[in-house]
Each structure stands twice: as structure tokens, then as C-alpha cells.
């Protein structure tokens, strides 16, 4: 196994095996001129009860990963296994049953709520679709959830534009939680929130996880938030997982040079200023026209000739900590 998860495979709630998602690049005449490799051979597992962070810069494929898991994008190749069942290419009716277990929150909760529906109706809808509950039971369930996410009951009669961004996130969560899912993919759940609101939302995630026995896939570009709440973290660069491991191990002892540069770019109050010693130059290459071998080699300060030859595989060289750098592997 590529990330050495054979032992832990039994308790993996979700497992991706060599998942690829290529989008065609079309020219002006709608002819395909190439492939954009949004996900390239991603293999990872999500264990029951953990929070797995997916980090990376924009365009690295982290949202595509979440959407592919959800079946919003069918994968080009590879297998997605959820709770022991292959869910890679489900028929629509089978996917509907799965949705109760596997849920996704969109980046912008304001845009994912119908502006003409009151909050109460938005919360009621998933129960109508997925359960056989009658009206009174549904109302009772909605009220329970509303209490759990910390929204006053009066909000049921408000429209989405009448509540704040933080409250919209809470509604988005409540909408999902009414179905009691086991795994939730959170796509940038704190982007666009002020820090003081972000802190309360993060605490809410942790509370709900305990209360409802949830597993989260936490997609974010904010590394300090990821460090704060995730158990394990996968770092992505241009469609590939370049480093995967326990959060503390990855943050305190990053192996891949990309992870190191990403960590060096976070402002840390009270520590050395990044503007004095940040070393990464350049920008990511065009994702439709990637360099050969390791994608990071064009910006990597320690790249050698061997980096251009083959894509370095993700290898676990310490228990629970794998990376895809040729140099760390030859050194080990």
C-alpha cells in the first residue's frame, strides 16, 4: 500500500485508492487540447472519529477531492470506499441513500441557502427527502438540532440574508446534522469569517463532533486553523498529496520542501518575521502543463536532476508520516 495504511485499513471509514480526476482542457473550437489533472493518484484513508485536514493553495485540487468523494464529480480512475462499500460510480438512487451518511458543506453558506426560503423550511427539506417522519416529528428534530448548533428558535422565521455569516454557517451545519451523518466534508468552513467568529465556529465543530460522533474531512487553506483542530493532515500540491501524517508530526517536522515553505509563509505573532526570511520564489506552474517528475521541482530550492525523471511516490518512512520527496526518501 502506498501510504502504508494496511494495518489501519479496518477502521478506515473512507478510503481513496489511486483516485484520479482529470478535466479536459478545451480550445476555442471545443476540441480537447490537454488534461488538467485536478487529482492525480490520490491514496488516503479517513479513520472513524478523526478530523483529517486537507491543506494546499488554490488550484491544488483540495475542493475537487471533497467533491469527488461526494460523487459530485465522477472520478476518472481509482476507487472510493466508504464504510466497506465501493461508492465510486453509484447509480443516482443508491447515491441518495448514501447522502444520509456522507455530507458536504459548501464554501459559501449564504449562496447554498435558498434566498426565498425561510430557515425553517431549509432545515425541514432534508428530512422530507430522506426520512419518513411526520410533520410534528420533523419539527421536533429541527428544534433539537437548532439548539445543538446554538441558534435561537426565532431564527426559523428569518430569511438567509437577515442573519450573519457565522449564523449562516450554523444553519448550513444544522441542515446536514438533522440527518445524523457519519462523515462530513467541510469545504473551507471558516473562510470569510472574522477571527472572533471563527473561534466560536471551530469550538462548535469540536462540540458537535463529540455529541454526534462525527468524522470530518476539513478542507482549508488556513494552516493555523488546521493545526488547531485536525488530528491528521494531508498537504496537496497540484493534484497530488505530497505529505500526509499526524498534525503535530507534519507541523513540527515537515519533510517535503513544499510543506516547509507553506509553514514558513504563515505569519506567527511574536516569532521571526516572514518578510525577512521567506525564501520561496515564483508561482505554481500552469496546471494544464505540468513539469515532468515532481511538480514542485521548478520552485524547489533543493531540487536535483533526479527530481525531473519520475514522480516520487508517497512513501511512509516513519510510522504515520509519509511524504513524496525524492530527497527525504534517499536520505532515510
Amino acid at each position: 500500500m502506498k501510504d502504508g495504511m494496511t494495518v489501519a485499513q479496518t477502521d478506515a471509514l473512507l478510503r481513496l485508492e489511486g483516485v484520479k480526476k482529470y478535466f479536459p482542457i478545451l480550445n476555442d473550437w471545443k476540441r480537447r487540447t490537454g488534461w488538467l489533472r485536478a487529482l492525480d493518484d490520490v491514496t488516503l484513508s479517513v479513520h472513524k472519529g478523526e478530523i483529517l485536514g486537507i491543506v494546499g493553495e488554490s488550484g491544488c485540487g483540495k475542493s475537487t477531492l471533497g467533491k469527488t468523494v461526494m460523487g459530485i464529480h465522477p472520478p476518472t480512475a481509482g476507487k472510493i470506499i466508504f464504510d466497506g462499500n465501493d461508492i465510486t460510480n453509484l447509480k443516482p438512487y443508491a447515491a441518495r441513500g448514501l447522502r444520509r451518511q456522507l455530507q458536504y458543506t459548501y464554501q459559501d453558506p449564504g449562496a447554498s441557502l435558498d434566498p426565498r426560503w425561510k430557515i425553517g423550511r431549509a432545515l425541514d427539506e432534508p428530512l422530507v427527502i430522506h426520512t419518513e417522519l411526520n410533520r410534528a416529528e420533523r419539527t421536533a428534530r429541527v428544534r433539537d438540532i437548532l439548539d445543538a448548533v446554538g441558534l435561537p428558535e426565532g431564527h426559523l422565521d428569518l430569511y438567509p440574508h437577515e442573519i450573519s455569516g457565522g449564523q449562516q454557517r450554523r444553519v448550513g451545519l444544522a441542515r446536514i446534522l438533522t440527518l445524523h451523518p457519519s462523515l462530513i466534508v467541510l469545504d473551507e468552513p471558516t473562510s470569510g469569517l472574522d477571527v472572533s467568529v471563527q473561534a466560536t465556529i471551530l469550538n462548535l465543530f469540536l462540540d458537535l463532533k463529540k455529541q454526534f460522533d462525527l468524522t470530518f474531512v476539513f478542507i482549508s487553506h488556513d494552516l493555523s486553523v488546521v493545526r488547531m483542530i485536525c488530528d491528521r493532515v494531508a498537504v496537496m500540491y497540484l493534484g497530488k498529496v505530497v505529505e500526509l501524517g499526524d498534525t503535530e508530526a507534519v507541523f513540527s517536522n515537515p519533510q517535503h520542501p513544499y510543506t516547509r515553505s507553506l509553514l514558513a509563509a504563515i505569519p506567527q505573532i511574536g516569532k521571526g518575521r516572514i518578510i525577512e526570511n521567506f525564501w520561496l520564489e515564483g508561482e505554481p506552474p500552469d496546471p494544464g502543463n505540468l513539469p515532468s517528475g515532481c511538480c514542485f521541482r521548478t520552485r524547489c530550492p533543493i531540487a536535483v536532476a533526479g527530481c525531473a525523471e519520475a514522480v516520487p511516490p508517497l512513501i511512509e518512512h516513519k510510522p504515520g508520516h509519509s511524504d513524496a520527496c525524492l530527497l527525504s526518501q534517499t536520505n532515510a
Partner: protein
Amino acid sequence: MIEPLLDVRGLEIGFHTDRGLARVLDQVNFSIGKGEIVGLVGESGCGKTTLARAILGVLPKNAAQIGGGEVIFEGEDLLKKHPSVLEAEIRGRRITFVPQDPFTSFNPVFSIGAQLEELMKWKSPDADVGTGFRFHGRNRRRSDRDRVMELLRTVQLPDPAGILRKYPHEVSGGQRQRLMIAMALLPEPRLIIADEPTTALDVTIQAQILKLLRRLATEFGVSVLFTTHDLGTAYEICDRITVMYAGQEVESAPSDEFFAAPRHPYTKRLLESLPSRERGISGIPGSIPGLVAPPSGCRFHPRCDFATAECAKSRPGVTDAGERHMVRCYHPVAAKREAAE
């Protein structure tokens, strides 16, 4: 004491809304010294963008109402100047602007070179001030072009000549922000107002842009007003930081002192909201007040742990809390010099 380049005193601005007058700035004092980078930090809706726009003189005329105060820039009150004078002499010339969103700030139908040329027609340091457009000779065009090329190299854009022929959608976000910084520097301004210039960028690009901005500010000797909601970026680049809450400035201090010993309860809670492994996460209970009928006195008092009756009655005056450290609070937090983490 650094001589102030810009001094905002008691500025009061309201916006007419359906529900009444929203008091967006309430007696705000704020200053920037020569060559200083000052961070204006606060959560969304605290009035930092309004303050930046008021300095530039680009508030919407029909909605904004200036209640009082003065904006003194190089000894002159900008609020008393005629809009056309402001347009010709100050804005885009002595005060320039770097926007938050480099994606929508270029005109998509003109090449970048054409847009830079247009800028230089009006705002080149060699252009005459206040006489409108006049035909200018080959020499001036040549010197302007040299200046543009030199600056594009200074902001570390690869292939400057090639980039002038490109259209805005053909360059990446980081490069567009570099171009914006170059455009802000071309008229040789005294003050650059950068409104959240790195919010739309990735962390590694943000680090590069912050590094660039810091270097250029020192090199060109310009002052920068840097608004941000992110205390981390403010820490990286600013010499001094002013914090605003719901339209009132609450604390202003040199950067190091600010992070080591915050005095205002709001500032302290804001710093504690930053995610940190050691301390856990703590938000600020309650939410930001509406500005149509804001809380009386200090606007933070309903959420403050130390609030007393006095706080609701009147707004605290400016208290000196150290060298160039100002705090507006009746009960400032004791200056405990704990090691900033």
C-alpha cells in the same frame, strides 16, 4: 516623535440607510508618520475601509455624510479641498491606492501596457498638475516608458516587456497584485493606501507580496496605510497598529509593544481569538453591534468583561499607555509583559 504625514482628527462619518443614519465612524483619531507602515486592523464592518475611502475622498456623495473632523495631509485639510483639486493634485498622485481584489481592478478589454500608459498620461510625476490633459512630446513618453519598465523590474515581474502586451486575465493573481503595487508607486506618491492587499492571495504568494511591499516602502520612502482583518499579516509588515471596533478606534501602539502588551480589553480578546495549539480557542461572546443605533459610550461595553456604568455613559478619552501607545478605555488591562507567543 515622527512627524505626521497624515493626521485624522475627530472624524465623524455617517451613512444614510433605510433604517436611519448609520454612524460608521465616531470621533476617530488616526495618524501616519513619514515613512511608516501603519496597520488599520479590525473585524468586518468596523469602518476601516470607510476611513481609507474618506482619506482618498471617494465616499459616495449621496449616501455619506461627514459630521465633522479633519483629515490633515501634509498640513492641508483634505475635507475642505474642492473635489476637482483633490482629483488633480492629491488622489492618484500624492496618495495612491492598492485594492483588495487584483482580479476586478483592471479593465479586462485593454492590455496591461495600455492601462499603464493611460495612467502615465495623467499621473506621471512629469505631468503638469491641474491643467488637464495636454499633448506631451516624445521625450516625456520615452522617460515614462523607462520608468514603467524599471518599476516592473523592481516589483520582480518576470519578462516586463512581455507582460505589457498581455491582457489582465493572462497573468496570475500574484502578478496582478505586483502590477497594482507598481501602478501605485508610479506617480511617486507620499502615501499608499493598501486595502487588504493580500486577502485574495495564497499564503506563499502573500508572503512574497508582503516582503515586496515592505522593501519598496523603505526604498521609496513612502508611508503605507495597510488595512487588514488579519493580525498575523499586520504583525509581519506594520511599524504601528491601530485597532478599530464598530467605528471607534480603541488602541494604537507600535507593533512590538502592541502584540506584547495589549491594553484594551477588545484588543486582548481579539488576540486570544487567534487559533493556537497551546491556549485553545476562545471567541468573543456576543456579536458586532448595528451602527444605526450603536451602544452608547464605548461601543464595546456590552461585550466587555470590565465594563462599568461609566463606560455606557461617555466614550473614554485618549489615555497614554507608554511611548506612542494610545488606548481609549476607562479600565485598560494591566500592562503585563508576558512573552508573546
